[in-house]
Structure formats: structure tokens, C-alpha cells
């Protein structure tokens, strides 16, 4: 009886373990690990970070076509930039996604909501669009969805970073999730929101005060991270704009 109980406990533990690394059951993920793990380990070591990653933070700058991966060893430490990836394809223009079919890449504060190892674009990570801000600021009832960061170099509202690069980011995200980071934040910005870039946006979009107000609320989160290298806790006010909590 005791032996059977011990066996069941062991089996449960194994199942739990399998669940945490279940991504490795998928051939593409296993291949990604085989191809990229040593490289990523060396990169983290060079940056003085623990590997596998504990906490990840991703941010994308649409204007500059850059995806940055940041990591920290625990939630109390500031983040360190691990690597910047060039975005290969990104549809739409600067400005948030406000309706289904506009082919816009969203802008705002999101997280990775799911991983798809069977993606039509090699591997993909779903972005949690739409969020409460998007719902409030859109006048359209159909906001769309299925926004992914994926491989290949095609985009309809998604962020394509090519197969070799998605293998790296996907494998990092899979490991961080396995290590207990349930929500990996992904912040999508129109451009780097420095004073220079923001002033340019203000000048070019001077006839769109609503858009500028939205970007101004995004800038608060950008500035906070730039200064502290910590992910800001962001709230959404009654008008749908972001604010720092």
C-alpha cells in the first residue's frame, strides 16, 4: 500500500515536471533548444545572468523594428538587456490597433498569453491583445486578435522576426514560463519614447490629439523602465489611458 502511494506520488511529480517542460515534447521546440540553448547560455553568462532565465521582459519598437529581450534573476532585481532582435516584417503604421482587419500591430502593455509550437510561421507566441485599454479606446466592437510574435518574415498585424530568432526568443520564454513566470510582459511601443522621438511624434501627429494622449500615457511606462530597469505596474484610467500605479 505504502509502495503504491509512493509510486503515485512519484508519478505525480514526474507529471508535474513534464508539464513544466512540456514544450520539449514538440519537435520544433526540441530542435530550437538543440540549436540555441548553448548560445543562449553563453549569452546569459556573459551578461552575468542565471540560466535558464527566471524573469523575462520583452519590448518592441515598431518604428525602429526592434524586439528587445531583457532578463533578471529574480523579481526584485532590475532587468538587464540580453539581446536586441531586428524585426523582419511588421504590417501597418505607427499607431495602435483599434479594429479587426486594420493590419495594425497593437501598441500597449501586454503579456505573452500562449505559445504555439505548431505555428504556420515556425513558432509563435501570442500577445494578449486586446486588453482593457484597447477595449475602452476602440469605437469598434470587433477588435480582432491573434497577434503573434513569430518566425518567417510575413506579417498581417504580427511581429515576424525570422525562424532562427524566434527559436531563441521562444525557447527563452518557454523556459521562463517553466520557471514560474506566468505572465511574461510584452510592451509594444510606436518608437523609442525618448524626448527626441516623442517630440518628433508630437510634431508629426499634431493634428491627432487623441493619439498623442494615448502615446503620452505609453511614454510613462517607457520612461519608468528606462530609469529603473524594472517593469512598471500599469493601471488603466476611466478613459482607457494607461497610468503608473
Amino acid at each position, binding site marked *: 500500500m505504502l509502495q503504491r502511494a509512493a509510486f503515485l506520488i512519484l508519478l505525480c511529480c514526474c507529471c508535474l515536471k513534464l508539464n513544466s517542460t512540456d514544450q520539449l515534447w514538440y519537435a520544433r521546440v526540441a530542435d530550437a533548444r538543440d540549436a540555441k540553448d548553448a548560445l543562449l547560455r553563453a549569452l546569459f553568462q556573459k551578461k552575468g545572468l542565471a540560466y535558464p532565465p527566471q524573469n523575462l521582459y520583452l519590448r518592441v519598437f515598431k*518604428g*525602429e523594428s*526592434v524586439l528587445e529581450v531583457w532578463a533578471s534573476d529574480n523579481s526584485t532585481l532590475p532587468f538587464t538587456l540580453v539581446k536586441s532582435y531586428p524585426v523582419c516584417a511588421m504590417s501597418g503604421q*505607427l499607431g495602435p490597433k483599434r479594429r479587426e482587419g486594420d493590419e495594425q500591430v497593437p501598441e500597449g502593455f501586454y503579456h505573452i498569453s500562449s505559445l504555439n509550437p505548431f505555428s504556420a510561421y515556425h513558432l509563435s507566441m501570442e500577445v494578449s491583445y486586446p486588453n482593457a485599454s484597447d477595449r475602452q479606446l476602440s469605437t469598434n466592437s470587433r477588435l480582432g486578435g491573434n497577434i503573434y510574435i513569430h518566425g518567417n518574415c510575413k506579417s498581417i498585424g504580427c511581429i515576424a522576426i525570422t525562424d532562427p530568432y524566434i527559436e531563441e526568443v521562444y525557447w527563452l520564454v518557454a523556459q521562463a514560463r517553466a520557471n514560474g513566470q506566468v505572465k511574461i510582459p510584452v510592451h509594444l511601443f510606436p518608437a523609442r519614447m525618448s524626448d*527626441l522621438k516623442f517630440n*518628433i511624434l508630437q510634431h508629426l501627429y499634431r493634428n491627432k490629439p487623441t493619439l498623442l494622449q494615448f502615446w503620452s500615457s505609453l511614454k510613462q511606462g517607457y520612461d519608468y523602465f528606462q530609469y529603473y530597469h524594472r517593469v512598471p505596474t500599469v493601471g488603466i484610467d476611466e478613459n482607457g489611458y494607461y497610468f503608473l500605479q
Partner: protein
Amino acid sequence: MVIFAWINLLAFTVAGCGTKPHVPTQAEIAADRQLLLELQQVLDCIDEVMQPTDEELLADAAGRLMEALYCADIATATRFATDTAIGLLLYVDEPEINHYSIKRTDVFKNRGVAEVIINQKATLKLVFGRTNDYDSWQLTSVK
């Protein structure tokens, strides 16, 4: 003694009034005019020699533009760049300009290229244009 003093006073008075003004002759007036004309020609020549070259004007426009961007002063930057060109800067992955230097300038009639190094790493080719030789250079594109 008194007479001597009177003579002195008279002498000072004559000196204070000055000499009788000279009325130039027609020949002198003509010579003056000729001299002024020649001087003006010399000045024009110096002025022409001292005019900045197109390359210098381009470097000046590029420098002032970069200075405005360094200060995030977009209002001033618009004096040296079109809105379209300023918009292109959003796609350049340099959030701030902490340092810049103009590497070289090339002028091709009404098109000029200033090669600029930003933050000692990114090299940008700023393409300027002008409508004619007397127009000022304006940034039209970024490569």
C-alpha cells in the same frame, strides 16, 4: 604785455575757427568717384571670395539640424528638414543624440549628402535638397 595777450587770443580764435573749407574741383570729384568705384569693385571681389561654398553651407545646415535634434528641439529642426525627413528619423534606432560629428559632405548641384556619425557608432546619410543655387539646404531623406 596786454597787447601780447590780445595777439595770443586772436591767434587761438583763428585756429579754433579752422581754415577756410576747400571746394573740390570737378576733376577732384571725378577722381574721387573713380576711386570709390574701384574700391567697391575690390570689396565685391573680396565678398565673392569670402562667400561660403556649397559644401560649407551644407555642413552648416547639417550641423544646425543635428544640434536641434541633440536638443530634441523639433521646431528648430523643421527649419532644416521637411516633415517627411523628420519622420524618417523615427525609424533610426538612436533614441537620443548624445554626440554627433559630420564625417563628410558631397554636393551634386541641388542635391547634397552629409554623412553623420551619431553617438560614435551609427552612420547616417542625410540627403539634402534645394530648389536652386541660392536656396538653403533642407533635409529630405535619411539613409
